[in-house]
């Protein structure tokens, strides 16, 4: 009977701890939304920040975060998929592959601040990119690439063997089999993984402090020439992202409503992350359903 009692207590403790985790998460999100939502308005989301006066918004920062995310993904996705294909299809079981696997693992465990410092040294200084979106995107690529490789590799490994063999049996080249049979099959998994990775990129700050910079020049949203220095699309302008902005106003905020801005910006950030998370989940499920229904 003693064992039975211990079992009951232990089960209770485990359930308790699991509920506590839920409680922390719900509390966290509720707190952020509660503090921030009241400050979010159309004006807040679209107007530029004020350094000294109250009433500033986060418009440029929000734009920068999204634009930087797109830039990063434009670089990361082709590279990550290519390397993922290698890892899953071309890599032979030898020392070299083991070594590359180690490289991916190490790369994914580098602290983001170290990657930021590397970006400062190489992209910002050596390549003379200055603090810019381009430098930030490249640093984020370093940070995101291993994740992308792993996502692709796992997705490709999840494709049934028969599909691949059928392709090869038809006389297709290996590359053709991969690109036109396996990749489409793996697409839902890759997409879900990519969106989750995008959420991580969206919230990253430490790697951007020293690469994309902590300022945004005045942007002219009527000017979409990517080479003009006032254009929001210029990849060589410095850009402060939302996450960096939160860090900055928490530390150097001079505006009288700085705490509210920090809370509002945090709420926006968390909402976007939630959207990414649920979006990935929903999209993954929807595509899966479509694929399995048609095939």
């Amino acid at each position, binding site marked *: 009977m003693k064992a039975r009692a*211990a*079992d009951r207590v*232990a*089960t209770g403790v*485990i*359930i308790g*701890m*699991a509920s506590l*985790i*839920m409680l*922390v*998460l719900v509390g*966290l*999100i509720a707190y952020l939304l509660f503090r921030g939502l009241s400050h979010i308005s159309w004006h807040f989301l679209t107007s530029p920040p004020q350094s000294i006066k109250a009433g500033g918004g986060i418009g440029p920062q929000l734009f920068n975060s999204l634009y930087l995310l797109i830039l990063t993904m434009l670089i990361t996705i082709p590279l990550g*998929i*290519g390397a993922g*294909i*290698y*890892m899953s*299809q*071309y890599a032979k079981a030898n020392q070299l592959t083991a070594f*590359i696997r*180690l490289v991916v693992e*190490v790369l994914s*465990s*580098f*602290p983001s601040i*170290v990657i930021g*410092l*590397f970006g400062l040294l*190489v992209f910002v200084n050596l390549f003379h990119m200055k603090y810019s979106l381009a430098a930030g995107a490249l640093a984020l690529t*370093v940070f995101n*690439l291993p994740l992308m*490789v792993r996502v692709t590799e796992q997705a490709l490994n999840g494709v049934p063997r028969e599909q691949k063999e059928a392709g090869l049996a038809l*006389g*297709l*080249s*290996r590359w*053709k089999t*991969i*690109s*036109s049979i396996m*990749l*489409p099959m793996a*697409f839902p998994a890759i997409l879900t993984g*990519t969106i*989750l990775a995008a959420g991580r990129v*969206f*919230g*990253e*700050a*430490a790697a951007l402090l020293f690469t994309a910079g902590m300022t945004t020049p005045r942007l002219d949203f009527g000017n979409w020439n990517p080479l003009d220095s006032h254009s929001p699309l210029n990849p060589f302008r410095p850009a402060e992202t939302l996450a960096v902005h*939160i*860090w900055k106003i*928490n530390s150097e905020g001079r505006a009288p409503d700085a705490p509210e801005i920090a*809370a509002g910006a945090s709420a926006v*950030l*968390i909402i976007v*992350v939630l959207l990414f998370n649920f979006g990935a*989940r929903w999209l993954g499920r929807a595509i899966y359903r479509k694929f399995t229904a048609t095939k």
Partner: protein
Amino acid sequence: MNAPVRSVEAAGDRVARFPQHKREEWIGRLYAYACVALLVVTIFSIVWFIASKGLTPFVSGAIRFSDLLFGRVWKPEGEPALFGALPFLAGSAYVSFLAAAIASPFGFCAAVFMTQIAPKLGRTVLQPAIELLAGIPSVVYGFVGLSVIVPFLREVFEGQGYGILAGSLVLSIMILPTITSIATDALHTLPAGLKEGSFALGATRWQTIYRLILPTTLPSLLTGIVLGISRAFGEALAVQMVIGNAPFVPTSLLQSAATLTSIITLEMGNTIGGSLHNNTLWSLALILLMMTFLFVFAVRFLERRAKR
């Protein structure tokens, strides 16, 4: 992302002729190989650039490596300037180990809950929740730490609130997903027969978990914990916001301390590039880098043990 999709449509039923077939394969291979080569180049250049900056203080003879590692006094602007990084090493180690100590039981319990007690509820509620925790940006954790945990600790323990404990608590939430997901994977891969055998012998669930599941999955659990510590070790902004940043080896959990990452974040911008102070910060980054390698090898070692 576009390329493969478009090529699907283009491919159609077209039968590849031999030369095109070969060319295709070549281009494809070249592309995949180039991507991998880039990965390797990236990692080497990271190590090379950080090391070449971080080693200058030792090469020029300004500081001895052992002085940096074991010096207890950080007085970069003093006369004479002293660069002892022990406080930061100790701070980093304290917060990350403590965070792992707090997060591990929670991670294990969550994994048990998801795999043994209520798999359905676990999969639909707890797992998404934990993944969400992983997705929350670190600045947001810092913001919450600053506005909730620090005041809370100040109320409870009568002190300044900033310090090791505040940092550890924030980090423990941040590394919980890492520990949980690895523990869950380990519990999932457990042969079903093992558990059923134990139940058949009349063991209760807790006995099964405690006597059987815990010992067999321990190496994997440790892997998760080491990964968690590794993540905590490298986390910068969230910790910097709540730890207090005094450059001393802390003697109490509630005392203000500093970590490798926090000192780099705070001082990098204020120091002149090329000065000894600045270069020493790069040395700290190098130490951080070396620690990453150490953690990766520890994880590999544990994984190999787990497989056996």
